[in-house]
């Protein structure tokens, strides 16, 4: 596996948005600042962080829903640059959105919602084939064929998310960006959808970028996990490694903040509660972005941004004081 070419390779990706701060003045908001990672074929990379840390922007920029400010995105050995590259890439890479209520057009039937990507990319030769494909994808996500003529509002949240997933599968993609696909769902339904993501991956050989803030869900579904803070990647390692041996102080406090559904463990849990809020990305601190909330911050942290270094095989951390903290 390790020698294989990655399916998605992101190099030094930057995404700045210009925010107007006055009549003639504007300021760049660094939503994503210099991020590099790669995802192997058939792998699931989890992306976690607080709201406003840029995880959704990473997902959208990879799909070129935003034009990247700087950096490169490679898909299967090809750099994506021109408009026709993007067109071709979008047939191979799709997205599942967070909110199953607002991401489906209320005026379209289920078959039209799932059929739309087929129309856009011209993936059928006649109407019969189109319908066959639609029914096939509906079956794949556990919807009945009789649902095809209904509208989205007739379905529950879990079923709507299934429709959204069927739509993203319709172009027969290799890569899916899942942007918080289960956070709007109830626990019992959430488990159904998570299992479906697993099954589809096994069946269709899909590769996922799984963005979520529920760390228990991410740990369950991901092979590797990247932790983001204020537009930067602070730690990247295998799912088990991040959970058992988090090294970055932010990852540590993020993990200890997760409520554990076990009363005895929860009572004994020693938390590292973070004080304060995440700073505004418009006024990001100099140097390490986490230093304003970090217990271990020193002068060096204010001066320069730490590099993402590989501390053990496959475990990357960006922290100046790594050695002192983890002694």
């Amino acid at each position, binding site marked *: 596996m390790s020698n294989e070419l990655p399916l998605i390779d992101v190099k030094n990706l930057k995404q700045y948005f210009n925010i107007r701060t006055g009549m003639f003045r504007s300021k760049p908001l660094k939503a994503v600042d210099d991020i590099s990672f790669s995802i192997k074929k058939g792998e699931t990379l989890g992306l976690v962080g607080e709201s406003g840390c840029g995880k959704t922007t990473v997902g959208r920029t990879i799909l070129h829903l935003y034009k990247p400010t700087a950096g490169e995105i490679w898909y299967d050995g090809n750099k994506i640059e021109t408009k026709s590259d993007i067109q071709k890439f979008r047939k191979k890479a799709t997205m599942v959105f967070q909110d199953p209520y607002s991401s489906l057009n209320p005026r379209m039937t289920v078959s039209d919602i799932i059929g739309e990507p087929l129309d856009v990319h011209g993936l059928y030769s006649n109407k019969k084939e189109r319908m066959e494909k639609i029914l096939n994808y509906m079956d794949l996500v556990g919807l009945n064929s009789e649902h095809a003529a209904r509208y989205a509002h007739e379905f*529950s949240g879990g079923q709507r998310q299934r429709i959204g997933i069927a739509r993203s599968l319709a172009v027969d993609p290799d890569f899916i960006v899942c942007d918080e696909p289960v956070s709007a769902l109830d626990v*019992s*339904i959430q488990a159904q959808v998570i299992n479906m993501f697993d099954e589809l991956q096994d069946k269709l050989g899909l590769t996922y970028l799984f963005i979520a803030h529920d760390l228990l869900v991410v740990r369950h579904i991901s092979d590797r996990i990247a932790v983001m803070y204020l537009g930067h990647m602070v730690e990247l390692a295998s799912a088990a490694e991040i959970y058992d041996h988090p090294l970055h102080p932010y990852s540590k406090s993020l993990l200890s903040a*997760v409520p554990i559904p076990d009363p005895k463990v929860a009572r004994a849990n020693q938390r590292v509660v*973070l004080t304060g809020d995440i700073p505004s990305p418009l006024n990001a601190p100099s140097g390490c972005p986490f230093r304003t909330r970090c217990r271990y911050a020193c002068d060096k942290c204010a001066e320069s941004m730490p590099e993402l270094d590989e501390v053990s095989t496959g475990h990357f951390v960006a922290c100046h004081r790594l050695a002192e903290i983890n002694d």
Partner: protein
Amino acid sequence: MPLLEVKNLCTSFFTDAGEVKAVNDVSFNLERGKVLGIIGESGSGKSVTAYSIMQILAGTGKIIGGSIKIDGQELVGIGEKSMKNIRGNRISIIFQDPMTSLNPTYTIGKQLMEPIILHTNRTRAQAYERAVEMLRLVNINEPKKRMKQYPFELSGGMRQRVMIAMALACEPDILIADEPTTALDVTIQAQILELMADLQKELGMAIILITHDLGVVAQMCDEVIVMYAGSICEQGTADEIFYNPCHEYTKGLMRSIPTADTAGNKLHPITGTPIDLLNMPKGCPFAPRCDGAMKICIDHRAQGMQINDDHYATCWMNVKKGLDSGDIILDEEGEDNE
């Protein structure tokens, strides 16, 4: 005498499509200084239970039966005027979404001082002092500056702190927290939960914590109520509910949560979708989704069965288990005697 006593509470919404029994025969007690968790899926009636206690139901909703007593005083049917003295004074509520539950056109200070002036004999100046003190209590820095600010100037976590400050300003006996941390990040959630636990110890109030997050329940609650389709299906101490669940729905919920052990394996979800409250079956509402459903589950709704001292469940499985092990013996009429 328990601080809060809810007995056979029934709340319905009368819609064009028919009567929706959102809360159906719910009874529980809340003791002073305890934290009671109510868990359940969306539509299970957990929020409506809270709104019924506060009597802040939407226009079509109505309490159609049962009683709610605080310190022995009946609240159902006492009228809006008397209820105003209870709300914010003896029972307070904080809502899920701190973004929408504060008025965007008033300053934090004005909103915080309102309940204090309304419910206590303090003058404006004293109310101001009290409001600043409350902001300090919920760990908001520069409280005097915040008093002059509007909600949009604060972050989500801060707004929820303001909500808590507002709810606690009149030292209520009961705080109802309706999904207080659902809209927040885990790190901020940890801060808010810690704050609530500290304040609870300091002020000695009782908390009803409504949530769908089992992790939050495990961390915060002494006692737990599990609701499904408007009814209580299981209630008991947190340890009993987590380590000895006796209702198939609770068991299903516990199996649905991803943990460290499930990584790489399949989860065991509850199949199907929540029930339509307009078309309630006559048997157990969970039977259509239950893997172990028996004939009796489809025809008869189980009554509360006592598992041990303070653990009740409404699931026929417990009777079956009892019969199989010989703990329950059927008498002549086929009725069970425990």
